[in-house]
């Protein structure tokens, strides 16, 4: 009797232990941790797939929607106007963060862009998890998309998206290689004062990738005032504008001597596709190439 009892007891104990072990192993698998490095090289650890995500930058909003995460997004900024569904989301700030509205949404992950250190620290103080999306060039845009996809467990869509982008970029590069001539290009950021975008900006990178030569290549800083004399000296073949009507530029006083004006080579580019480092940056690249080389059309 005693012996049987003992066996039964031992068996029960072993069973319970093994069961607990197996259950534990299986359970641990279900709540696996997601670890990702953001663009500021900060390690992010999430307990699981985030359910409520806030985007504090239009490009991130575009990335999230491109990844098909429409339902996950619970907050955007007033600047987030693409895709159209983004406008229906709760707006939780513009350049400044409306911390109350952010808290109210009870997000488990917040995406923001670089250069908002104070707001980022404040959100950290409030116990929120923040990821910084801050790509500096075309390749980094795709890298950012990849890790954003990983942390939101949309890796498949992400890979697909990036592969498509990569293919289109390759195509543009191939075409650029085919043109023997490298047209000089000026992208006008603003007219008064005349401002241009130099190295370190996306537009500069896009012009080069598309096969053009940016006359603002020597600028000491990414964004700044560009001397009109320099413009006339370089006399670009193409002028790109985003913030002005190109017809108005064509009529601009004193500019009539410029080659681009004489040739009517002033093209308008949608600022959103060249300034937002998101999926549509490839649209921007294609648009720039089409503007520089009319033959592409």
């Amino acid at each position, binding site marked *: 009797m005693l012996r049987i009892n003992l066996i039964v007891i031992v068996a029960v104990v072993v069973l319970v232990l093994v069961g607990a072990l197996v259950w534990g192993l299986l359970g641990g698998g279900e709540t696996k941790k997601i670890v990702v490095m953001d663009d500021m090289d900060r390690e992010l650890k999430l307990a699981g797939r985030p359910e409520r995500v806030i985007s504090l930058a239009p490009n991130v909003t575009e990335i999230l929607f491109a990844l098909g995460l429409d339902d996950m997004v619970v907050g955007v900024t*007033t600047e987030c106007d693409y895709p159209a569904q983004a406008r229906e989301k709760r707006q939780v700030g513009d350049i400044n963060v409306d911390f*109350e509205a952010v808290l*109210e949404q009870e997000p488990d992950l917040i995406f923001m862009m670089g*250069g908002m250190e104070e707001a980022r*620290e*404040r959100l950290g*103080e409030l116990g929120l998890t923040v990821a910084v999306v801050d790509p500096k060039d075309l390749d980094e845009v795709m890298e950012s998309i990849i890790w954003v996809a990983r942390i939101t467990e949309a890796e498949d869509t992400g890979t697909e998206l990036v592969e498509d982008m990569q293919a289109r970029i390759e195509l543009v590069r191939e075409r650029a290689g085919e043109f023997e001539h490298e047209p000089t290009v000026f992208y006008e950021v603003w007219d008064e004062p005349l401002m241009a975008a130099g190295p370190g900006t996306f537009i500069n990178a896009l012009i080069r990738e598309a096969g053009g030569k940016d006359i603002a290549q020597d600028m000491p800083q990414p964004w700044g*005032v560009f001397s009109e004399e320099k413009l006339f000296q370089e006399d670009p073949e193409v002028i790109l504008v985003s913030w002005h009507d190109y017809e108005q530029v064509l009529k601009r006083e004193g500019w009539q001597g410029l080659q681009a004006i004489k040739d009517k080579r002033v093209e308008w580019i949608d600022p959103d596709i060249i300034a937002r480092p998101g999926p549509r940056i490839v649209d921007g690249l294609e648009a720039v190439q089409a503007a520089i080389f009319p033959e592409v059309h």
Partner: protein
Amino acid sequence: MQGNLSKSVIFIITLFLLLAGAFLALAWGSVPIPWSRLPVILFNPGPEEGTLQLILVQLRLPRIVLSMLVGFSLGVAGCVFQGLLRNPMADPYLVGISAGAGVGALMAMVLGWQFQVLGLGAGPFLAFAGGLGTVLFVYRLARVGGKVPVTSFLLAGVAVGFLLNAVMSVLMVAMGRDLHRVLYWLLGSFSGRGWTQVQLIIPYFIIGLIILVTQARNLNLLVLGEEAALHLGVNVEKSKRLLIAGATLLTASAVAVSGLVGFVGLIIPHIMRILAGPDHRVLLPLSGLGGALFLLWGDTMARSLMPPVELPVGVITALAGGPYFLYLLRRYRETYFGGG
């Protein structure tokens, strides 16, 4: 005399408005919270109200406290500078504090410096140091044979201010795309400020206030002019030093945590003088309370007028303060300017 109200009545009214304002401000914001629920949410939140408590305790409360502290500081400092410079149109930024702090803050932004000193981040620390350093420099510059005549202090301050403003413009050009941050800083804002900033400002607030309270009566006499004050028994140079030190401490620390919130230091002491007379023993604390009240309301408006967009509080103070100021000037023109 000025106004029809006795000083203690004005005191009580201001204090009441301040407390009531703080309570209302707690209920106002981009997330609606019914004010009847406030006590419950604050002290005994239900299971669904944890976030609301967080919003109240971590967002609204520190902003309310901070805006009151900054308003108090600027009101008092403005009052001191107006008395000291014998000019009811002076403000705390007149002698170069703003430009000095601006250069400091912009340097931090442009150069992207990141460090912590005394619990202050690079921006606030450099703003604080810039403001303090500028006034110190101006004070030394204005010294003539062991004395610092108020006129040369003012002139040196304005001149140095111009110089630093030019430096600031250069830095702003260098800012390029991040100009909006500068803009918000220049207009003043409490966006994203919390208990950290409250902790930062409090020691300077207390020290500055203690210094100024001891000098309130001397300020009454300094208003008559330095020589007149001397003849009435004021130790003029010592008193001036303390007044400048106290007011600078208050202003520089306020600027460090909130940027250049304009108008408070100019019109609040003025309004209070119209209402309660020029005795600084009454006027200093009253200007402080008035400044606190004004900025509390200003900030509440700034964050709840058009959510989620937040207006710079300086815009609100100018929009709200300007017309009221003009009204008071017109109404009391005769008593105030004499002769009429």
